[in-house]
């Protein structure tokens, strides 16, 4: 089976005059897996998600790319110039902008996505109810979409995309500005999709990635400095993870072999990336 996403030496810049925002990226994301993309602000996380959704290529006509990019069975499309929705669904960083402002109830707001895709009224009603149930939003169905808390709006934003049942779900910093309860809810929702939908999410901390991701990418200045599964991440970056992860996680980390010199260099680089002292 072809991977959900495959990049081969993929580079991107916004124009011929600008620097490469993404540089030499090579990785594959298997179908149904959950991938965390980590990195500081400006590392290229959002650029990568916008590229994969097709929105970047559409809005930045002067953008140039090299290498190859494949999304599902698209073949080599280098840089998608049209939105790939509904096959690829993306929830933007600010969930409030995902709410159109056209509707007065959450269920109407969610149905707007399917209206755009020309679904029949019966199909819309069925899908909306299904999505509300999946995200535990039934009690909010008749509430005003803009009169909700941050965590609730985040779930509504997610519902607005999930209702179209995309093959790939892209989440740009999904727990941004959420309290701990909201973060837990979002983590649980992402976890529930593992195996069914390919999920890529960006974040600037590693705890969520360690909790739910199968695959981890770390970006720095548009380059990929780590690409692998969770155990490889832990093995190669023991010192780094022991600094970053919360105390309650430290007990569950297995004792790891002594890091190689390459792993130490990598750990130093990642620690520097997150502004930490590497001992």
């Amino acid at each position, binding site marked *: 089976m072809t991977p959900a996403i495959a990049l081969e030496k993929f580079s991107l810049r916004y124009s011929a005059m600008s620097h490469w925002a993404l540089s030499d990226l090579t990785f594959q994301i298997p179908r149904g897996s959950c991938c965390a993309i980590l990195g500081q602000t400006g590392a290229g996380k959002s650029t990568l998600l916008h590229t994969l959704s097709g*929105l970047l290529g559409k809005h930045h006509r002067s953008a140039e790319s090299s290498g190859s990019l494949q999304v599902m069975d698209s073949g080599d499309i280098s840089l998608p110039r049209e939105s790939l*929705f509904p096959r690829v669904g993306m929830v933007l960083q600010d969930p409030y902008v995902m709410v159109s402002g056209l509707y007065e109830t959450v269920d109407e707001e969610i149905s707007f*996505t399917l209206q755009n*895709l020309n679904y029949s009224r019966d199909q819309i009603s069925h899908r909306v109810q299904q999505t509300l149930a999946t995200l535990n939003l039934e009690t909010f169905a008749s509430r005003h979409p803009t009169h909700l808390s941050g965590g609730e709006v985040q779930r509504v934003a997610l519902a607005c995309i999930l209702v*179209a049942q995309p093959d790939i779900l892209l989440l740009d910093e999904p727990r941004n500005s959420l309290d701990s309860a909201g973060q837990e809810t979002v983590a649980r929702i992402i976890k529930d999709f593992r195996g069914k939908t390919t999920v890529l999410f960006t974040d600037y901390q590693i705890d969520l990635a360690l909790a739910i991701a199968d695959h981890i990418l770390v970006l720095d200045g548009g380059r990929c400095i780590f690409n692998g599964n969770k155990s490889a991440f832990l093995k190669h970056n023991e010192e780094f993870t022991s600094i970053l992860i919360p105390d309650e996680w430290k007990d569950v980390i297995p004792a790891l072999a002594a890091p190689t010199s390459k792993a130490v260099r990598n750990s130093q680089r990642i620690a520097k990336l997150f502004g930490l002292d590497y001992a």
Partner: protein
Amino acid sequence: MFDINNPTFMRLDIPLKLSLVLLLIVSAFVGSWQTNLLTMLALSSVGFILLLTQASLVQHKKLFLRFTLLTILFSAFIIILNGIFLREGDQLASVLSVSFYQGGLEFGLTTAFRLAVISTSLFLFFTTTPIRELIYFFQHVGVPAPLVVILFLTLHFTIQLPLRVNQIFTAQEARGASVRGGVFGRAKALFVILFPLILSSISETLERGAALEARGFRGNFSSGQEIRYPIYSVALAWTFVAVAFVLIILTILR
């Protein structure tokens, strides 16, 4: 008979409301200041009755009160300034050695009440019309999709503006700036926040456009049902438009 508790009284069809606004704007330009004053008083009364009696508009009550107060202050400001600086006609009065002239006062009254009628009618239109219905209407009458999207994003931006200003004011206050102290303090602070306000609003509008596309929006808003306006409503709307044109032509020929 109009029943004030019947929502249909408030929910006039959009073509009817738009044509009424057009007629009011035209009459504001062609009418005397006395006519405009009476129109403004009538509009304000309708506004107060609607906003104080309709539960769905209750959130606009405070806004309308503030709007009315500002309109009165602004009108008085324009009238006084014109009365002082436009030295035409007879000198009517002198207060603390400041003279008021008849021509200036009349010009001030005309300008002030004209602006008041236009702004009040637009205010009432937008507070009683959900964006969704307006967007469907534009699409229904065949306005091109890209233009409808631009209108939608602009309306959204306009509605969000007071909220955004308030957020930035609060942020400035948190930094110790005095931004809510009186009219002059606010005016000064407004000047300072203008740049971040414009930047953040442009950025949010672009984000919202991207979010619409991320949800499969291709430029066509759909209400899910065919829009039909009652024949009497359309006929009345066309009558208002016709009267507005007649007023314009009569004014040109006069």
